[in-house]
């Protein structure tokens, strides 16, 4: 296996121009982000000249009441949406992998995972149309509902993958040792699932925290999340404050994604 991998790596490097294309991709991907991060510490209002180190844009961002309330909204929505989505995803995974097989099980799996492949703008328009059709006024609650729904598949995938990997013999051993259905889940399956559940939760949290397209359509007036607030600021005119808040958002995302990865790796090695 590793032999084949290394030989394919060699052959990939032999393609003419591979190195140049790869470097260009990395450059385009990461240099702008790096610039944003570095200039968020710039002392002067410029993204081209360096005027010395300063935290003043961070201070300014933190004291901006618009950003404050948007951050609060984003956190509340991300925590709630991720929590509900993770619970629903865990229950769905139990039903799909532990329940009796039922007709149309493949169809249910498709229904759960297809949203990952639907263009987000379509989901956004559909959600908006749905809320308007049933007469919901738009606000934080519509954002929360929409986020919960589109977070479910992201939470579902790692949880169901892990649950499939846990042999039925563990459930049976628990029941054999006098645990009822609930206690078998609570004391055996759930602890074995914990890394995957945390991983699914963090993924859902980040997806919700970062979302722009759906949020922008289903948000009512005054219910602004952080990505919407950043977008609003950019439209008014560029300010290093945006660099600061973007850098923070990036940091949170990176922490969550790497933690999610680490936790799921711990789960697998256990």
């Amino acid at each position: 296996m590793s032999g084949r991998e290394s030989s394919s790596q060699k052959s990939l490097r032999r393609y003419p121009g591979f190195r140049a294309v790869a470097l260009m991709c990395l450059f385009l991907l990461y240099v702008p982000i790096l610039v944003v991060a570095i200039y968020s510490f710039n002392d002067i209002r410029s993204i081209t000249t360096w005027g010395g180190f300063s935290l003043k844009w961070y201070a300014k961002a933190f004291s901006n009441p618009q950003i404050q309330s948007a951050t609060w909204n984003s956190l509340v929505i991300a925590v709630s949406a991720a929590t509900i989505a993770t619970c629903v995803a865990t229950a769905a995974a139990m039903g799909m992998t532990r329940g009796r097989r039922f007709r149309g099980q493949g169809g249910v799996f498709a229904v759960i995972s297809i949203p990952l492949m639907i263009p987000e703008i379509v989901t956004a328009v559909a959600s908006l149309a749905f809320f308007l059709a049933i007469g919901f006024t738009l606000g934080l609650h519509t954002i929360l509902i929409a986020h919960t729904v589109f977070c479910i598949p992201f939470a579902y995938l790692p949880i169901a993958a892990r649950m499939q990997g846990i042999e039925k013999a563990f459930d049976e051993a628990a029941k054999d040792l006098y645990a009822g259905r609930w206690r078998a889940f609570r004391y055996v399956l759930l602890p074995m699932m914990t890394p995957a559940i945390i991983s699914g939760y963090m993924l859902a949290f980040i997806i919700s925290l970062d979302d722009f397209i759906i949020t922008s359509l289903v948000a009512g007036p005054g219910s602004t999340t952080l990505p919407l607030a950043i977008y609003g600021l950019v439209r008014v005119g560029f300010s290093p404050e945006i660099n600061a808040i973007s850098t923070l958002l990036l940091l949170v995302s990176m922490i969550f994604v790497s933690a999610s990865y680490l936790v799921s790796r711990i789960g697998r090695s256990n």
Partner: protein
Amino acid sequence: MSEGENEIAVHIGDVVKVYGSGDSAHTALHGINLDIRHNEFFTLLGPSGCGKTTLLRMIAGFESVTEGEISLYGQNLATSPPNRRPVNTVFQQYALFPHMTVAKNVAFGLKMKGHGEAETRARVDEMLRLVQLDRFAERRPSQLSGGQQQRVALARALAPSPKLLLLDEPLSALDLKLRQAMRLELKQIQRDAGITFIFVTHDQEEALTMSDRIAVMSEGALQQVGDSRDIYEAPVNRFVADFIGETNLPEVVIERYEGDHAVCRLGDGSELHCSVSEGAAAAGERGHLSIRPERLSFTAAGEEGSIRCVIDRTIYVGTDTQYAVHLGDGSELVVRVQNEAGEELPWSAGDEVGLRLATGAARLLSD
């Protein structure tokens, strides 16, 4: 209720198991009838796929019973879910809970049954001492060897003092030496604990060495139930004779019956007296004998009462030597002769010798 020596622990009455339904229906068990006694080490023996696990899982409550009934000390189990049956299982792959220490694994059943802290701790200690793992109480299962994990699984299943312990090929994941040691240990633990064991294996040697009684199964049906000696010495049919140990199964013509014996003619015309298993064919018809290789021996060719044969091959297998021979009509048999210290093999390939049967060595089988 008193639990006397001959009381029935498990009654399995006309049990049928059908997996699936309609076109994909598959009958895994065809009407099994068995009574397993109190305090018995009972083994279900048969080749892979014959339905042993299915029967065990029905007793544990993990599979539904399609037809028939299973009862434990007179109580019908039909409506009890697995967690309400006083029956514990040692799973084939152990299924130890990886997130719990050895002690927590062993304590699990007691906790679920609602035993108190102190009582649970005492019982866990007792069980870990029984399987000689008291030093490993705080380890995780993944930090133990296969044999140690196997013993934890045993301790965990024994701790809640079940009325019946089910073991599904518990030794199959161990290497040979450990497997042999565990056979004796398991048997000893069963005696000490005073619990009825139902042990599943496809390994006939394992079954013969440990069991009080054995049920030999094939293709979802019982072939024979009896103690090790019965099964080995008096197999009822070709399947059992062939599956248990090594045997010769020559085809014969049944000449006549004399009392409880039969006189049968081998392919080369020589006549043999044989014991008869129930359901054997009538006089004048063809049938099969079972002759164990170690019940055959050699003498000089032409000696009174011996059968003339020629040795084709010899294989030295340590404790004894195995000879492949053919009779006058070309039919082949295998003979095993125990090796004596320092002695040259007295017979070699190409020799013409006389074949002698120990009394009662030949048994006429039903098909």
